[in-house]
């Protein structure tokens, strides 16, 4: 089975055996990033090679841990306001995502 690399330095990989929604664009700290309709923010970020999502209370790097809405390690800022769990929030066209570890 083949694999798709979204950009040359991305370490996350989208497999091509899964049917995907329409390709959309969103922003990570102002940077153009591609995603597919139906993906959560965390899936899109990991596929684009982002692993650090936030800093902890003592400024340690944190990223996706439980992936199912329990641990709150993947908190990101969405559209300049609300703080959301990246693993529970579906990415939308033009969405602006701020991560604290880039």
């Amino acid at each position: 089975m083949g694999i798709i690399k979204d950009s040359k330095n991305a370490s996350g990989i989208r497999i091509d055996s899964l049917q995907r929604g329409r390709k959309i664009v969103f922003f990570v700290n102002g940077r153009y990033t591609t995603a597919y309709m139906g993906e959560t923010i965390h899936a899109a970020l990991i596929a684009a090679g982002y692993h650090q999502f936030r800093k902890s209370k003592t400024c340690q790097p944190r990223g996706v841990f439980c992936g199912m809405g329990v641990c709150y390690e993947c908190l990101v800022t969405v559209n300049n306001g609300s703080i959301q769990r990246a693993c529970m929030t579906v990415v939308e066209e033009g969405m602006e995502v701020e991560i604290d570890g880039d």
Partner: protein
Amino acid sequence: MGIEAYDVVIIGAGPSGIGAATVLAEYSLKILLIDENNQIGGQIWRKPAYQPVSRFRGHQPPTRQPMDLSTGIGTDKNNLHITTPSCVLGVFPDKHLLLSTSDQGVREIKARSIIFATGAREKVLPFKGWTLPGVMTLGAAQILLKQYGVLASSEILISGAGPLAYLLSSQIIGAGGKVTTVLDRSSLATMLNAVWVMAGQLPKIGEGLLALGRLIKKRVSVKHRMQVVEVKGKDKLQEVIAVRIASDGTAVDGSQQRYETQMLACGNGFVPNIELPQLTGCDLIYAVDKGGWIVKTDRSMETSVSGVFAAGEITGIAGSDKSLIEGRLAALSILNQFGKLNSKKYRIRRAALLNKRKHCQRFGAFLNRQWAIHPREWAGIDDAAIICRCEDITMGTIRGWIKKGIRSAPDLKRATRCGMGICQGRTCAPLIYEILAACSVAGKQEPHPLSVRTPVKPIPLGDLARL
């Protein structure tokens, strides 16, 4: 505004919630099925995220969305209302609930009966550095792959015990990814024993053999009785250090292995999500062989609060077959209480389901034994390892307070803020119970669960203000 009323509210749309809903939907009852995820199906029946939009976005709740047929258990009954992604923030003993939905904000609803089908979350034995990006649970890696078709890295190291570690490895290989090594906590003998335990459950054996076949074909090295004790990296995982654990919970001298990897998926079993039933006032029992704190139920799946039922992993970790059975059991009991199923028919159907459940419970007991972690390992966690990930409280701090005489989780929380962070103790509380039990010198301690308060998940204050 009037409070919406339902005959039955089911919280959680995994196997037990769907099992209950499909039984109840055959009768003229107004039912609400709630799930926090975008899709119903729970953790085990997750499916690719790409679905026709109306199916997986909960923008019309709680109206007549057809239950998705791809779970294998569909219904087009219009008395069954499904709302996703929605979160129950609180449940009160008079069976009023606070519900937060993406489109209508927070509102109050009430039910004649409630079924808790809130499932389980993963447990990880903490080690130094486990908070580094690149370390995630087995479940997290599986969700990325199954639901979104994303491999977190081109090479993944797997550490854990039980079927999920092997299933995930097999799925990664099947998707074209590479599993560098599987560090299996259990011994080879335990694995062979699994075949005996699963006798009579051919599909499970088949799945297991398929997974093993894939690992053998790809020459993935499987190391038994290994446990990750430290990971290193600057801002991101680079190196994993594991040791061999003897049966007395100590590390075997000279067994240390180093692995270079950017991704580690690890898991040490599951913990029941008992927060909502606990908040409602349902009695709990602490049973290490069933996953920790579980909800106490009788043979009809009713909890200590009348008209409130619990089904699935929250009554003891044992997998999806048991959950499905218990969901149906709870539904039948409610039908009997509502006078829609006569007692004779009810007893016959209940007896048949209870009989089936026995086999599942045997499998569950085996799994929980396989996941069991020796108290010496809990007591031996490195001082630098973080236990409470929200508040960055280390094992060293906790050990210090235990030496000063702290014996219960609530006292530890007050002393250290451990469990007081944004995840509300969901990640660290189950760890603290085991650490306290393992480190306490003054004999056996009666564990106390951390208290739970409404709202059980953080929400913006503005949403509550509009209530």
